[in-house]
């Protein structure tokens, strides 16, 4: 009897797994993280719109994103000014024109919080994300939104909330609301892996 029951459980679990893409009810963070962690690299274009109180109108920038698991992220801004940002582990290199800045993420916790939210999501590293944020998931596998709310005072001083929206294992947009009222919205579109 017990055996039969557990066999049934196993079977239904398998069925659930197979059909989970269409069953929002069984959709959870672990599932999302697992799916995200399967893609080892990615190439996408982005358009980012920043709304800053200091400025009369939002500023827009665009370019490409390149990601290699687990922690290498490159953001190549093409407009309005060519700029390259490369994060590899704890090292951050920003190139602007002739200038090259080498920074350590640990020295810039505000920046680290931003970058880690994106990197952690792309890598599907729930543990890493939960070090800084409290996670909540909405929607279905076909269209999900992961919300990150800082869990420590230091990050709360800078970020109030991050919303990452996606389709299946692809991140489509990142919305960041800063504590000072400024915000940014980044639209991401997948490109063929180069």
């Amino acid at each position, binding site marked *: 009897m017990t055996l039969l029951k557990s066999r049934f459980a196993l079977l239904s679990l398998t069925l659930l797994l197979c059909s989970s893409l269409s069953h929002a009810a069984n959709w959870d963070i672990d599932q999302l993280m697992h799916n995200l962690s399967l893609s080892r690299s990615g190439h996408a274009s982005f358009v980012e719109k920043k709304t*800053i109180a200091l*400025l009369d109108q939002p500023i*827009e920038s665009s370019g490409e994103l390149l990601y290699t698991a687990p922690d290498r992220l490159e953001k190549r*801004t093409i407009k309005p000014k060519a700029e390259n940002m490369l994060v590899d582990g704890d090292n951050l290199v*920003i190139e602007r024109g002739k*200038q090259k800045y080498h920074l350590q993420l*640990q020295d810039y916790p*505000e*920046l680290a919080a931003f970058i880690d939210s994106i990197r952690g999501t792309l890598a599907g590293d729930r543990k890493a994300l939960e070090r800084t944020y409290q996670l909540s998931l909405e929607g279905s596998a076909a269209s999900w939104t992961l919300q990150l709310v800082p869990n420590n005072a230091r990050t709360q001083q800078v970020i109030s909330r991050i919303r990452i929206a996606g389709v299946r294992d692809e991140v489509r947009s990142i919305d960041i609301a800063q504590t000072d009222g400024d915000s940014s919205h980044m639209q991401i579109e997948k490109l063929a892996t180069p």
Partner: protein
Amino acid sequence: MKFTASRFAITVWLIFLLGCGAIISRSQFTADLSAFLPRSPTPAQQLLLEQIHDGLASRLILVGIAGADAPARARISKQLAQQLRQNNQFISVNNGEPVTAEQDHAYWFNHRYLLSATITPERFTVAGLHNAISDSIDLLASPAGLLVKAMLPHDPTGEMVQLLTQFSNSRPPALSDGAWASHDGSRALLLIQTHASGSNTDAQQLAMTQIEQAYQQAAGTHTATRLEMTGPGVFSVKSRNTIKAQVSLLSVISVGLIATLLLLVYRSPTALILGFLPVISGALAGIAAVSLGFGTVHGITLGFGTALIGEAVDYSIYLFVQSEHRQHELWIKRYWPTIQLGVLTSIAGFASLLFSGFPGLAQLGLYSIAGLITAAAVTRYVLPHLLPDNFHIHDVSAIGHKLSRLEQNAPKLRWPAAGILLLALIIVVQNHEHIWDDKISSLSPVSKADIALDTQLRADSGAPDVRYLVVISDTTQEAVLRASEQIAKVLQEQVELGGLGSFDSPSHYLPSVASQRARQASLPAAELLQANLANAVQGLPIQANRLTPFLADVASARNQPLLQASDLHDTSMAMAVDALLIHHGTDWRALLPLTALPNTEINAEHIRAALRSHALPNVSLVDMTQESNQLYSSYLHEAILLSLGGLVAVIALLFAVFRSPMRVLRILAPLAAAVITVTAGLVIFGHALTILHLIGLLLVVAIGSNYALFFERNADATAIAPRTLASMFFANLTTVAGFGLLAFSDVSILQAMGMTVAPGVILALIYSAIFARNTHAEN
């Protein structure tokens, strides 16, 4: 009458010893690098000396904490740093913790309009402001925008970004758990700057002890971690300790060994003690003479003195063994002239060293001359008076006869010996290109393991390896700062062209008064700036009223007092300015250290050409490594010339005495053969010859000449006396014992001398016996 003469001799001797003792008791002893630095330096060498003695790099102690795990190492690093920061022995203790970050930031921010090179009148025109603000807005859009957003209302023209750009060229070590860690993550790193200069060995030793104590406290007793320290000061302390320990150990063993040897020969403790009197007198006279002549006595000179025990003891051996039945008068008549000539040839050889610009060599020369004259004179004039009436030593005639038989057969070895000599000559000639080692590092008493650790920690920490410096000299601080600003422009071009990684300049932190005034004068009055700003933001997504803090900051910067060196106090840049801006007598000097791009070398000629094209006076690029190697290489050449001069002096002396080219040739031939064979031996075993090997060869000639003279002198007589042979044999043994011990030393300089002299004197004796004109053999 004789009684009075002996009493007179002994009294003079005792007074002499007391005098030497008095001088030595007031002598200073050192063991730093000073023995290897020039007495009359060129300006570039002067700079090198100052850097070695007192420069920024000389005060650096690199600390590594290895073992255990990263969090444990970081914890120890932080506790260690915290303790040391409270100690005024240390100017700075850096382990990556942001202890001065706030002060540094405040210095840059509060003085940005005096510090930034972009501040010109054009910057504050409508167009200038428009462009600068537009750039800042672009920066806001970038990931780094987050970092500048808060500053923008105060600094819309981005002066802070300009300033930070200048200093972000160098890469600090990686952080691990909030403290610096090596690239491979195996150790925590700290960079410590001592207050005392690197040449103050006592203070450096104290600093090391304090670091060690603080580490013990931070790490606790049961720790899996270990402390590693390196740096110029650490090297000085370590080599001083090594030299000290080695010299005392070698002296003790050497005296013990020679005493045992002599006791076996003499079988008389009285003879042993008396035999050491000339040695002790010679050593005291040598140290006293060096102290009088040079002011300080170097540890290396003492180490060398240890070896000379083996040589000075020879004279008493000759006296005891050669004089039969207390017939000292006869000994003086028969043998003293030969020994005297031997002493004179040694002195002729060493005298040339006195002219060396290398204080270490000159000290050795003076020590040897004073020591040998004293030892010989005491043997000749004092020792015979001290011998008790019942004085006798063990009969050595049995050994003498055995040696005599060997000696008679020695000429049979002429052909094999000639063969070996020819082979040696071929080896020397074939390798003549690379016999000499002309790098100064070959003299360093620092062990290879210590150098490897130093290289490792430097690579990990990005500590300055001050090799290339642009040096600017002038009479005022303002003049050198102005020149630094011009040179900085030239160097910045080189950085942008990719010929240079980065550079530092005191003008980065403390601009010249002229530049500061010019920048201040560029700042427009409040009304004008307000009007310009209102026009400048036209077409930009920002309202002028957002930037009121900017107007206020510029207004206050217009009346800001100009920056002085004292304003840097409490920032991490204070130390840099201190090291890069040097006040020396009536002279001011600015140093601009250059850093190569990773894995590349700086093209010095290229930089020199760039500097020359701007035709700035009193500016030069100094290559420290090349400068020090050149210095040593010039010493080496000088020493080779001096040794040749010494050789000429020896030949001239022998000519003056013998007036026969053939006889002089016969004396010199075995010595030359010994020198060639030893050189070939060193080459075969892969030793490049340093200046100390050369001195060793000179010693082989000086000591060997005694043997050659005995064989030559006695060639006139029917046969060389067995006693004479025995005395030479014993003298040779003691010399080999004394110098042979040096070959086992860890101090490369002493080792070089030992491995040259010990085989050299044995060969000199054997070659002398083989090639002696022995009439009796044919009888």
